[in-house]
């Protein structure tokens, strides 16, 4: 038993899951304390709804899945770039451009949903080129390029949508001036199929997007862990010099990694807006959806399969957070998530130190044994 327990701790995947679970536990406790501080009377009930709402009814569960799909995609986006040693804080911009491409395909060009989703992928990938290219060619930090291109994306999309006659809701008889058309009116064929799941789960939110997202996660996992391409990408991320030494084209890989990362974020935007339950609003603020990929990726330690679960978790407690209203403001969820990430940052570290220390000791023991063996040999001589 004890032996088995220790072995499970040795598997890196196992320990990072354990670390994440501990962080989640502590984060939830912090949340509970916060609820009591804010409103002791309602706290107990609110906490119960926070952690049970998502599973309480099929329509709530549908909402969890609906929100999880784009989160998986942006989480994959950030995580994939992390694996190549890049920080893609530009998932927001790529998500925005992906959304715009999908919506333009859907509304302006009346294309079917799968083409629109492909357009979203292309849009996101297109926006990922810039930080990658500028890093590879001019050695401009990808973080700063991403930040700049987030804003450029938002303004460019607003500009474009304004100049395409069919895009805005008012063209289709809608009342609001500031958002894109309702897809159900403009082009029902662009809605992501529901395949009867909406009826089954009694929710308008339910469609196949969660399955699409999971497929992408599996694809990302296969690329990273099974292919030579993934091997090259990770080599670049861990040690750029060594990858160059091994004849890997590091610059090409930086660009490709950002393009793929952008494509994931773009699909996230497509999945969200092609569900038909949200309309793109012409704002002067960046969409939060892209940024939410960062905690998702961190919680999953950039593992694509882990991303599915961490996105599900984040979405789950967001749905729970909505249910705490109006006694509590739903941003309490963000506090819980940020505490979890903060803890995960050094839970990860502790794990690494533990395993590193252990390995060093094993290595030293081995070294000592070798030394003895050599000495013994010398004596025999």
């Amino acid at each position, binding site marked *: 038993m004890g032996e088995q327990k220790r072995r499970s701790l040795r598997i890196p995947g196992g320990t990072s899951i354990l670390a994440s679970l501990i962080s989640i536990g502590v984060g939830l406790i912090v949340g509970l304390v916060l609820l009591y501080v804010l409103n002791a009377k309602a706290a107990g009930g609110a906490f119960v709804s926070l952690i049970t709402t998502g599973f309480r009814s099929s329509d709530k569960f549908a909402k969890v899945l609906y929100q999880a799909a784009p989160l998986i995609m942006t989480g994959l986006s950030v995580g994939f770039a992390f694996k190549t040693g890049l920080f893609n804080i530009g998932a927001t911009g790529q998500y925005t451009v992906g959304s715009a491409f999908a919506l333009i395909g859907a509304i302006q060009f009346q294309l079917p949903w799968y083409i629109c989703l492909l357009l979203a992928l292309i849009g996101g990938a297109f926006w990922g080129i810039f930080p990658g290219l500028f890093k590879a060619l001019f050695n401009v930090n990808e973080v700063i390029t991403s*930040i700049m291109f987030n804003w450029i994306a938002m303004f460019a999309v607003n*500009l474009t949508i304004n100049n395409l006659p069919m895009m805005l809701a008012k063209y289709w008889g809608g009342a609001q001036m500031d958002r894109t058309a309702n897809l159900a009116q403009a082009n029902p064929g662009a809605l992501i199929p529901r395949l009867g799941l909406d009826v089954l789960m009694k929710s308008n939110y339910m469609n196949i997007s969660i399955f699409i997202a999971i497929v992408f996660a599996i694809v990302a996992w296969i690329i990273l862990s099974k292919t030579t391409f993934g091997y090259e990408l990770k080599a670049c991320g861990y040690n750029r010099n060594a990858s160059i030494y091994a004849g890997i084209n590091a610059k090409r890989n930086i660009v490709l990694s950002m393009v793929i990362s952008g494509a994931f974020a773009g699909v996230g935007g497509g999945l969200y807006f092609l569900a038909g339950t949200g309309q793109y609003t012409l704002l*002067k603020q960046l969409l939060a959806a892209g940024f939410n990929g960062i905690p998702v990726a961190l919680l999953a330690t950039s593992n694509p399969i882990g991303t599915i679960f961490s996105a599900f978790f984040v979405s789950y407690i967001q749905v729970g957070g909505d249910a705490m209203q109006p006694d509590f403001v739903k941003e309490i969820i963000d506090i819980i998530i940020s505490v979890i990430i903060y803890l995960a940052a050094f839970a990860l570290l502790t794990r690494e130190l533990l395993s590193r220390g252990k390995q060093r000791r094993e290595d030293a023991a081995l070294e000592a044994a070798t030394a003895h063996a050599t000495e013994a040999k010398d004596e025999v001589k």
Partner: protein
Amino acid sequence: MSILADIVSATIVFMIPLLLVALGGMFSERSGVVNIALEGIMIIGALCSCLFLRYMDASGFGAAHPQWAMFFAILVAGLTGAIFSLLLAFASVNLKADQTIGGTALNMLAPAFAIVLTWAIQGQGQTTILIPTWARITQETLGIPVRDTFLQLFLFKSFYQTTIWAVFLFIIAAVVLYKTRFGLRLRSCGEHPQAADSVGVNVYRMRYAGVFISGLLGGIGGLAYTLAAGSAFQSTVAGYGFLALAVMIFGNWKPLNILGASLFFALFKILGSYSGSIPFLPKFDNIKASEYIYLMLPYVVTMIVLILTSKKSRAPKAEGIPYDKGRR
């Protein structure tokens, strides 16, 4: 004439938060800690100082001594920002955690905390904190007659105490960084912490100090942003923390360059917002919503300049790398 005064004064008022926060980031990164949490620090500073201003207003002290109240609000902004930043220092110095991850957590924490606290204090659904009108410095404050001169138009359009402090803090920052023992030691920790340690400089303490100063300046920058952006705090600084990070890189981690970079960026930003009323700018009559072209401009231009100057860019060598005394 009046439009020019508007543009100049708006440029300055938007430049101040960028300048302060970028200088803050500079201190943190020069000590070796990448501070991506500037956005969150700004929010916390703005939140606490705006709450403080509300309190001052309610107590009557604000109306009676507006600029004293403002002075204390600036102190509150700086101190709360600095205290908040200690969370980053703790994670990245003591726990040697990934600095980006710690910063991301704080960026997420700050706006959520702001909303939760605003709710808790102001009651359900009340997520904006109004800034008292007396916060601005007017002709009245200084006791001079109102005239329609260019100087007055530009000076008093949006004149806050934060602007004066920003000028002081900029000079102090530059002097501290280059002329003092503290600055020398701080910079050595961002470049070669092992060297600093070997001559008895306490790297951990220096990095704490760097992050603390970034919190101080970031918090004041948060207040300055809120004052510039409108009449209320709404639990956000709209990405200005990230912009300041860009300005800092653009300014090559040097005070004077950061001053130039923040001025440059603010100017293009204001040109974008005022594009409609500036006579000589092309109007793009056949394009709808052409203001977006101008709004995009500062980001595009910054990007181009960054590419052109990328060869000269030189980040502190040891930034982002946790310093571990045991491993050398």
